[in-house]
């Protein structure tokens, strides 16, 4: 039996991957999308999306499912919760093998692997995830009614979530590793005006301690290296994202932050391998920019296939 060769295999079913799938399949290209998790990527983990044009407010889950349905309607095959075992992408025909041993061939690849929440990397972080450490204020905020919590980070997400968590917590302390905030002035002003919030700058949590659940943390001043212990009920971490590129390291060119380097045509250093979304080198990571990347990558793939 002859093996099917797809026009494109897209790795990642977030906004960039699904958009690329929609554009390619509408252009009658055969497309397979593979994702190690659920469709939607980071947006599926977003409680509410209020800055995606066309929707005043929509849950990230609903937006993901709508994009997925749209891609399937145009003919994309989508495999979610599917781990990739091998990437053979250097040749003219690319091959992707998944964990159950099945392999798929394609003329082009679009890497839309997205990103994941950055962890602090401190001792005890994995142990107390879900037992006092959280990465989602809207999901877990109500577990901390009248309790004292820490928010880690100094960007917009951290500042905004610190304010939103004051609905539940009796006190919120922001721990930020730098001297200056990274968020917009509006977010800083709102945080500063909230009487339940205080902050510790130029400091990092270096250890999480507890028994059944988190009880205290050790904080280190980055300048003086002085350490102190703080009793705490919960810690919410919002320190940005890291690209999901560990599996493709060494296969395509990455920068020092492990982001995929692409040219103006969204092509990587490997011919026929394109990339889009949060895993590529860029300044702003938004759903709208991922969708734009997916569009651009798909249109460039079509041009490449027509050569």
């Amino acid at each position, binding site marked *: 039996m002859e093996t099917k060769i797809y026009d494109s295999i897209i790795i990642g079913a977030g906004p960039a991957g699904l958009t690329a799938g929609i554009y390619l399949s509408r252009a009658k290209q055969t497309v397979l999308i593979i994702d*190690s*998790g*659920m469709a939607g990527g980071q947006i*599926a*983990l*977003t*409680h509410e999306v209020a800055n995606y044009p066309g929707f005043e407010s929509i*849950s*990230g*889950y609903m937006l993901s499912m709508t994009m997925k349905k749209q891609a399937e309607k145009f003919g994309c095959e989508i495999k*979610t*919760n599917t*781990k990739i075992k091998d990437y053979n992408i250097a040749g003219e025909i690319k091959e992707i093998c998944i964990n159950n041993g099945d392999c798929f061939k394609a003329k082009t690849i679009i890497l839309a692997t997205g990103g994941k929440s950055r962890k602090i990397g401190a001792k005890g972080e994995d142990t107390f*995830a*879900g*037992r*006092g*450490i*959280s*990465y*989602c204020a*809207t*999901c*877990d905020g109500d*577990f*901390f009614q009248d309790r004292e919590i820490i928010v880690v980070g100094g960007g917009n997400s951290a500042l905004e979530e610190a304010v939103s968590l004051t609905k539940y917590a009796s006190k919120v302390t922001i721990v930020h590793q730098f001297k200056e905030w990274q968020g917009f002035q509006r977010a800083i002003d709102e945080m500063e005006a909230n009487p339940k919030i205080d902050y510790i700058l130029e400091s990092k949590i270096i250890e999480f301690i*507890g*028994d*059944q*659940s*988190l009880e205290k943390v050790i904080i280190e001043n980055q300048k003086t290296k002085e350490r102190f212990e703080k009793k705490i009920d*919960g810690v919410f971490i919002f320190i940005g994202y890291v690209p999901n590129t560990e599996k493709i390291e060494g296969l395509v060119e990455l920068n020092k932050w492990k982001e995929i380097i692409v040219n103006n045509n969204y092509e990587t250093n490997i011919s026929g391998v394109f990339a889009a979304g949060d895993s590529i080198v860029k300044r702003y990571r938004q759903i709208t920019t991922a969708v734009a990347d997916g569009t651009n990558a798909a249109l460039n793939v079509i041009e490449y296939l027509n050569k």
Partner: protein
Amino acid sequence: MTLQTNLQHLTSEADVKKLIEENENVMICCGRMGPMCVPVYDIMEDLEKSGKYDNVKFADMLFDHPEAAIIRNAPECRGFMGLPFTMYYKNGKIVKATSSIQNLDQIIDILDSEFGK
């Protein structure tokens, strides 16, 4: 009051007891339709569909349902402060419980180690 998933929905303490009494291996995810819960339901749906875990019954329960107290107040969930609470039962007894989001590998590890392949 049920979750919008394709899993079997449990809506009472009696439902939970019946399921774990009648089945050797059971996985129940107790959560909301929130960002940390939905990926776990999605994995459960895919595992159920795959047929590779026919030895396991998969179900969900709304965290805020009053009768979900059978899960919320389980001793194994002491200290849990992240949704969803995911419970693994063997012969009617809790053999593992996790708090917050879990990925495919973490769930498969538990299913394989607690229930066998």
